[in-house]
């Protein structure tokens, strides 16, 4: 009995460390790898999957290769791509967030593509470059999203306020519009990329850089961004709210202004209309009220390193048509709340979704998230979101939290 118990204890202990944090994760599902299907690794969900498949079927018809989607969770796509490639079963193409391209290319998971006689000037510059790493083109963008500021027009008019442009505007408006049962301003404060990427515009507008989170400019920007939660103008629950949760609050009149993702806008307009609330939209704010430099979101379709020769050629062709076929692009970007990166398709897309006008304005002065730190971006994301949460909940001063964030992120780089 005793020996059995000890054995059980030992086994349990061993099992603990086995899953405590080892990096030797299991390889992914096995796909046949003859002349056969070219696998596109994607984190698309729901309606997107069949719509993408329709597009890839066209690619199949054009190139003679069968394209198949392999769907994974968005949090895991980075590691999955690497695991599959490491086990000799790498995807032929990867459809992933543009900030991942640098890391994936650096790890050797991507192949440079040939874009034929495509003119780079037909693309918005930043997004086009987001398909590059160290001067080589690995993929092309489909379209871009971003976060914009939405507001309850009636409430702002009533208080005699204009749409906020500067830090001072936003702070003043948030203060004035916060009442019993209503918050002035909401932003998502969920740990990870959700929080970090909605903060970068403020960091840049203060003159800071993602490469140095401990700089006085970064501390100033973080103090500003965390102040709404800290001062009670923003709901504490936003520590767990995504943009989709926030729009419900705006549409119900419980939040006066918010920074939300453009993918939620059509939904917000619909809900607000049903409640008789008029919604205004404007770009993200900046320190002095000038046009903000914002990070652009959106996916890049890139080629995997496991394909070469004719297969790579087929993937390249498919990537080019993915980013340039105007008709399909308008359809895809509408569903995603994106504005096409391909300029000839933008006009048609704006006609379909006029509420993206603010986004198109913002994109003109946008910047890629990996321009400053390249493949080290991922560790910055985690460090900054932890620091912002600490400042907002009063767990640490802005100076301490940001110094720590820089120290943590820089370790082992």
């Amino acid at each position, binding site marked *: 009995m005793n020996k059995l118990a000890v054995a059980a204890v030992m086994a*349990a202990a*061993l099992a*603990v460390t086995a899953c405590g944090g080892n*990096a030797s994760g299991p390889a992914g599902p096995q796909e046949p790898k003859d002349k056969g299907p070219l696998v596109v690794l994607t984190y698309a969900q729901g309606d997107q999957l069949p719509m993408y498949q329709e597009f890839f079927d066209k690619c199949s018809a054009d190139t003679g290769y069968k394209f198949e989607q392999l769907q994974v969770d968005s949090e895991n796509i980075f590691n999955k791509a690497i695991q599959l490639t490491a086990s000799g079963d790498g995807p032929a193409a990867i459809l992933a967030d543009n900030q991942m391209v640098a890391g994936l290319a650096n790890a050797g998971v991507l192949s440079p593509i040939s874009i034929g006689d495509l003119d780079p000037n037909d693309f918005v510059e930043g997004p086009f470059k987001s398909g590059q790493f160290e001067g080589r083109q690995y993929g092309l963008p489909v379209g871009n999203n971003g976060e914009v500021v939405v507001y309850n027009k009636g409430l702002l008019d009533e208080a005699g306020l204009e749409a906020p442009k500067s830090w001072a505007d936003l702070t003043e408006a948030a203060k004035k519009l916060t009442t019993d049962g209503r918050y002035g301003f909401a932003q998502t404060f969920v740990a990870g990329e959700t929080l970090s990427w909605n903060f970068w515009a403020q960091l840049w507008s203060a003159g800071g850089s993602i490469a140095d989170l401990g700089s006085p400019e970064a501390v100033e920007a973080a103090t500003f961004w965390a102040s709404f939660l800290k001062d009670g103008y923003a709901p504490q*629950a936003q520590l767990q709210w995504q943009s989709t949760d926030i729009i419900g609050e705006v549409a119900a009149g419980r939040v006066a202004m918010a920074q939300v993702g453009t993918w939620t806008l059509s939904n917000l307009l619909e809900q607000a209309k049903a409640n008789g609330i008029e919604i205004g939209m404007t770009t993200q704010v900046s320190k002095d009220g000038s046009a903000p430099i914002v990070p652009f979101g959106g996916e890049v379709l890139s080629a995997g390193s496991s394909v070469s020769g004719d297969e790579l050629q087929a993937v390249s062709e498919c990537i080019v048509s993915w980013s340039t076929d105007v008709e399909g692009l308008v359809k895809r970007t509408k569903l995603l709340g994106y504005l096409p990166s391909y300029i000839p398709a933008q006009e048609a897309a704006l006609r379909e979704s006029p509420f993206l006008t603010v986004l198109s304005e913002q994109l003109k002065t946008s910047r890629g998230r990996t321009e400053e730190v390249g493949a080290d971006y991922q560790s910055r994301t985690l460090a900054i979101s932890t620091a912002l949460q600490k400042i907002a909940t009063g767990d*640490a001063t802005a100076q301490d939290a940001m110094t720590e964030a820089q120290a943590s992120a820089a370790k*082992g780089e």
Partner: protein
Amino acid sequence: MSHVIENSVRRRPHGMRASAARVLFILPVLAFLLLVFGYPIAFNIWLTFQSYDLKSMITGVSEFVGFANIVSAVTDPNFGTALLNTLFFTLASLFVQFIIGLALALFFYNNFPLSRTIRAMLVLPWLVPSIVATTAWRFIFKDPSGFLNQLLGVFGVAPVHWLTSNDTALVSIIIINIWIGIAFNLVLLHSGLQSIPTEQYEAAAIDCAGYWKRFWYITMPALRPVIAVLLVLGFVYTLKQFDLVWTLTKGGPGNSSQLLSTWSYSLSFQSNKFGQGAAVADVLFLLSGLIIIGYTYVQRKHANA
């Protein structure tokens, strides 16, 4: 004494064959343990001393970096927070689970109508997959209008930011962990109670021993081996707790509910710093190892006494 020695001398050849057979029987288990437990641990320790990054996953190439990963991990400002949180989480969960589990086991010792049914219901939390349980708790703790806050509202209490405040996030998670762990304690202690011979209680009753006397001098000593196993298993099980925290707060807000396990995962799979993640996992391994060695030592002393 002498005939014992004679006996063993006479039987030596046969004894050797027997021990060879014993080794043969152990081999499959040994191979299994090495493959399933030995390899991952060895890999983890190897990883601790390597400059293993995303590139290495593809190329397989990494360099020996000595203690650099360990130094980086231990000097990280988050290490202290995660370690203290882990110890508080483990000890608080263990203590409260045990007390409530013991009280319930004693309560169910005497069979009464429906006692089996109620006991079965109390074991339910243990059987529900933790991802399901935590999703339910997410609704209960939801900010600001979760079930618990609505319930408190009935009594005029202001809503509490259960999972979104750094004062309450870890405590909320401990509450859930206790809720899950009570069943384990109840089941083991209840079966331990059943194995105590009733004659001992009858004899004590004849000697006019009261309830507390019987509890301290009969029940507790008889339960000691069960309690030891319970606490050691509970410690190891609680120390590695991961999914609960990950689904509810991901260690936040800030780092207020960060445990060594979640931090190790973040380092490895979010920041791609595999060596540092492995170093943190080593700390967990070390902590469980110490407890188990201590337990084995105490057991052996008892057996020899």
